[in-house]
């Protein structure tokens, strides 16, 4: 057990240190939801000819924050695999006596903390600007809700990583999937505005439920009834782990996709 904890902490802490030494990038990611939400808020004001309420801006900034997190989350493991293969780190990791699940859990936890810290900083600022301290408890609960939805997102993240092992380049896999996520999840507009088939696509993915539940928890309060898709969405998590393990074994160890 001690060995597993050490291995887990080793992977988690190097990823954390590596990120901390790119603080500018982290700052830029935090800046993005503000940039886009002010932009759409401004366009809305310009078109309507009146200043919309701050609640509209809040709807947008929470949407853009969850969108940013979703996009990062979708491609983080694919990026980890690709960078690991290019830098040779993944081979050394796979040649060490580290259980593959520890690698997955440690990187997932790192990605989750990264995502949640973005949400915490942006969401906290936005909540205080719009609602003052009144909705702080709601906001803290929304972090918990987001954490729950990160699990199925992690499943998708692992499936994308596994596909990256086959395709070798993440861009070809990640970009089409990200486009689908952005278009169908209703981050900055209600999903009901979309044609039915796109709505169905959006409802089959966890991102729509994540952003809707997070927004609702902050504005109103936690409503367990709206969490109904979560148990089903957790199948993504299980599928992600199974597919990743199968493809990693088959393509890296059996087929030797990465040369000899």
């Amino acid at each position: 057990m001690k060995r597993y904890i050490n291995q887990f902490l080793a992977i988690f802490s190097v990823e954390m240190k590596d990120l901390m030494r790119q603080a500018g990038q982290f700052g830029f990611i935090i800046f993005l939801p503000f940039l886009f939400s002010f932009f759409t808020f401004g366009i809305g004001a310009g078109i309507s000819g009146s200043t919309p309420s701050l609640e509209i801006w809040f709807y947008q900034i929470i949407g853009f924050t969850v969108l940013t997190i979703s996009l990062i989350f979708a491609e983080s493991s694919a990026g980890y695999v690709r960078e690991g293969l290019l830098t040779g780190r993944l081979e050394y990791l796979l040649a060490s006596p580290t259980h593959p699940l520890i690698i997955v859990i440690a990187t997932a936890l790192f990605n989750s903390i990264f995502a949640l810290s973005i949400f915490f900083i942006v969401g906290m600022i936005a909540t205080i600007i719009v609602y003052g301290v009144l909705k702080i408890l709601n906001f803290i609960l929304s972090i918990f809700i987001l954490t729950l939805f990160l699990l199925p997102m992690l499943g998708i993240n692992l499936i994308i990583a596994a596909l990256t092992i086959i395709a070798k380049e993440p861009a070809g896999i990640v970009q089409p999937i990200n486009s689908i996520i952005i278009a169908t999840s209703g981050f900055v507009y209600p999903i009901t505005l979309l044609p039915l088939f796109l709505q169905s696509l959006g409802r089959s993915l966890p991102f729509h439920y994540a952003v809707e539940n997070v927004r609702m928890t902050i504005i109103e309060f936690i409503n367990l009834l709206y969490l109904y898709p979560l148990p089903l969405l957790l199948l993504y998590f299980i599928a992600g782990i199974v597919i990743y393990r199968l493809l990693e074994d088959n393509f890296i160890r059996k087929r030797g996709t990465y040369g000899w």
Partner: protein
Amino acid sequence: MKEIIVANNLVKTFKSKERKGLFKSNIKIIKALDKVSFKIYQGEIFSLVGPNGAGKTTTIKILSTLLIPDEGEAFVNGFDVLKQPNKVRESIGLILAPDKGFYVRLTGIENLVYYGRLYGLSKSEALKRAEKLVEIVNLGKDAYRTVDEYSLGMKAKLSIAKALIHDPPILFLDEPTVGLDPLSARRIRMLITELAKEGKTILLTSHNMWEVETLSDRVAVINKGNIVAIGSSIELKEKLGLKYIIEVEILNNEVKEYETTLGERGNPVIKITTDKPSEKLMSLIEELKEKKYNLGYIRIIEPSMEEVFAKIVEEK
């Protein structure tokens, strides 16, 4: 001697795409290893040499559990690479490319601690071991700089430290001196020799035949996935019937009885090719003394591993 690495009839094939224009491609099956078998004994430096794509790295990757063979079996430190991969991984230190495998924004020490912990060391144990290793590999204070500032030589040293972080009994070193300047390469070679003296078993691959000859107890030549020759460098030279060249410089004399060439100092040099250099040299010196020749330098040129390599690979 104890057999510490055993490879039995290893077979590995890869599928490769041959592009035939924009859309068409053929799947080509490449047999990287075709029934490769060898044994390595405890404390031995064993080199695997061969042309590019011969199967050296595939062999190392199978032995280090990174690749699964299609057929055959392999044992490392008594453990089956397929059935006991974690035991195998604990037994080996690995260098696949001396400049790769690092988090470049982290320092050398931080990278070593990371790898130490992957092998089950606690943070303090890993740090202690890392500090000792950076001294051994002569990295010194540079170990506290981030890896993106390292030269290739420094990365190679760090790679050796990385491979040794959990003090494994076996080292797999895939071209550990590739791209290094002569001084750095010499330091790495000295380190490899010291490690072997400490009792570590080393499987080495290199394209530098002089390095292979200097370091190795035994050498296996692999070509197109087959082991085509195996033995000590002397055994291989004898097996191939490679000849030694004896050179004797003659001073202030005209040589009539022997064929000569003009030497570096403008004097005639007798050159004789033989497979028994000491006997031939003794008799030649006797003859030359009897004939009152003044002798200059005497040199025996051994056939090099490069010749061994060229002869084996070209013949096959």
